[in-house]
């Protein structure tokens, strides 16, 4: 809980992913040309890719300060299991940095010509998918905690892991736009979220222990 | 034999460049594995030899 407050205090940093997202989302129509048909077709994928890149931004250096300033040691010493502390840290980061992107996503989608209900489906996929992506990416952040920041290494490590969620998030939206019934795919996204939520915090905790030699 | 002559074999019915470039790249990679190991092995041996010589002196 203290983390959420901290994050909101650092509003500048929290705004970065969302600003980045907006910039990317605007660049694409400018780069691709204003053909409404084209924009409508690529919108789900485009929004999703932009969202993924924004999440990467939110993930960079996620645990670095905690490792450097000794917070991690305190976590290890406290009574709470490390995986729980990790989960709350990641959740706080998601709320502060990624939730704005999820909320903005459908607005961008509407701007690209998607219908209202398709934009809602897109938001739903983002809402289910970005936490999963965040957890997967946090594993990478944990592994890279001792490393220098800003290198593209985090992207290289975790983007392959993001691919299934990207495929299902964007694909489900596109299928819906094409008139298909997508409850099965949404359930799959939900299942991935639940699996990530139950399995990944422990893995992230293990990663933190490994890279600090504990 | 599936081919009537050596030149037919090399040509592979117009597909020669594709087939042979694929296998060629593979052979290059295999040779590269061998060369890399040979170089590393030599480096390892030299390292040990130098270390022993330094400790003797």
């Amino acid at each position: 809980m203290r983390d959420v407050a901290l994050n909101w205090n650092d509003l500048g940093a929290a705004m970065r992913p969302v600003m980045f997202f907006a910039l990317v989302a605007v660049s694409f129509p400018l780069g691709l040309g204003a053909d409404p048909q084209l924009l409508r077709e690529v919108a789900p994928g485009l929004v999703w890719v932009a969202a993924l890149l924004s999440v990467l931004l939110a993930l960079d250096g996620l645990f670095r300060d905690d490792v450097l300033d000794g917070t991690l040691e305190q976590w290890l010493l406290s009574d709470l299991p490390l995986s729980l502390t990790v989960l709350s840290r990641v959740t706080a980061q998601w709320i502060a940095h990624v939730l704005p992107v999820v909320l903005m996503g459908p607005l961008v989608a509407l701007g690209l010509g998607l219908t209202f209900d398709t934009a809602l489906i897109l938001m739903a996929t983002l809402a289910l998918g970005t936490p999963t992506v965040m957890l997967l990416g946090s594993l990478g952040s944990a592994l890279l905690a001792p490393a220098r920041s800003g290198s593209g290494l985090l992207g290289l490590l975790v983007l392959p892991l993001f691919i299934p969620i990207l495929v299902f998030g964007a694909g489900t939206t596109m299928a819906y736009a094409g008139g298909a019934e997508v409850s099965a795919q949404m359930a799959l996204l939900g299942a991935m979220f639940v699996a990530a939520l139950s399995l990944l915090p422990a893995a992230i905790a293990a990663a933190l222990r490994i890279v600090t030699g504990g | 034999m599936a081919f009537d002559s050596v030149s037919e074999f090399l040509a592979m019915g117009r597909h020669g460049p594709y087939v042979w470039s694929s296998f060629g790249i593979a052979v290059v990679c295999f040779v590269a594995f061998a060369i890399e190991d040979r170089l590393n092995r030599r480096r390892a041996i030299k390292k040990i030899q130098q270390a022993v010589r330094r400790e003797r002196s």
Partner: protein
Amino acid sequence: MARTWQWFHRWGSPPHVFHAGRQWQLGFGVAGFALLTLGWVWGLAFAPVDYQQGNSYRIIFLHVPVAFLAQSLYMAMAAAGLVLLVWKMKIADLVIQATLPIGAVITFLALVTGAIWGKPTWGTYWVWDARLTSMLILLFLYLGGMALRPALPSDVAGRAVALLLVVGVINIPIIKYSVEWWNTLHQGATLKLTERPAMPASMWVPLVISILAMYCLAGFWVLQRLRTLLLLRESKAKWAREWVGEKYGL
């Protein structure tokens, strides 16, 4: 039970792996190159022409073995990663280091041969079909494993890479499934590489031989690299110095 434990521990000791490994290395090497020659000569010169694809299908004797190998090597590394993380056998870290570049090159080879094969078959070097795309992602997984090590302090790097590999291996089936589903969404023209009729024995026998050959060669290459890495790492060890002394003089 005690016997298995002994065996397990013996393979954790560097001198044992180095010395006993030599025979395995030789065995794999001889078998691998022999089988490869047999498989490739048979496949290239003696197997019948494919009526659909002409002679370009012969790339299959290279592409399929390396594609299978690329995936198997990753799984082997993940298994070694588990051994490192759970049983803390340090040799597993060297096994991973030995295998990563081999696997990456093999995956690259699979991609390149797949692309070259695609040109005469579909008219284009690259298609976003399920298998090629999954193979590309696999290459990134390999590259990620290789890139992580230099970024971390050396005492923790081995286990970090091991964890990354284990997580990666769990993801591989998920990635494959998702890419296949994505492919069905976007199936424009029917670009199915593999819906072939059953192969006659004159084709699948050399194929199986080539696959076996490639796996043996992988064993050869990994053992070769592993033993060299052992020499590099253990330059202070008595067994290493004795061996160098005998073979090369000190």
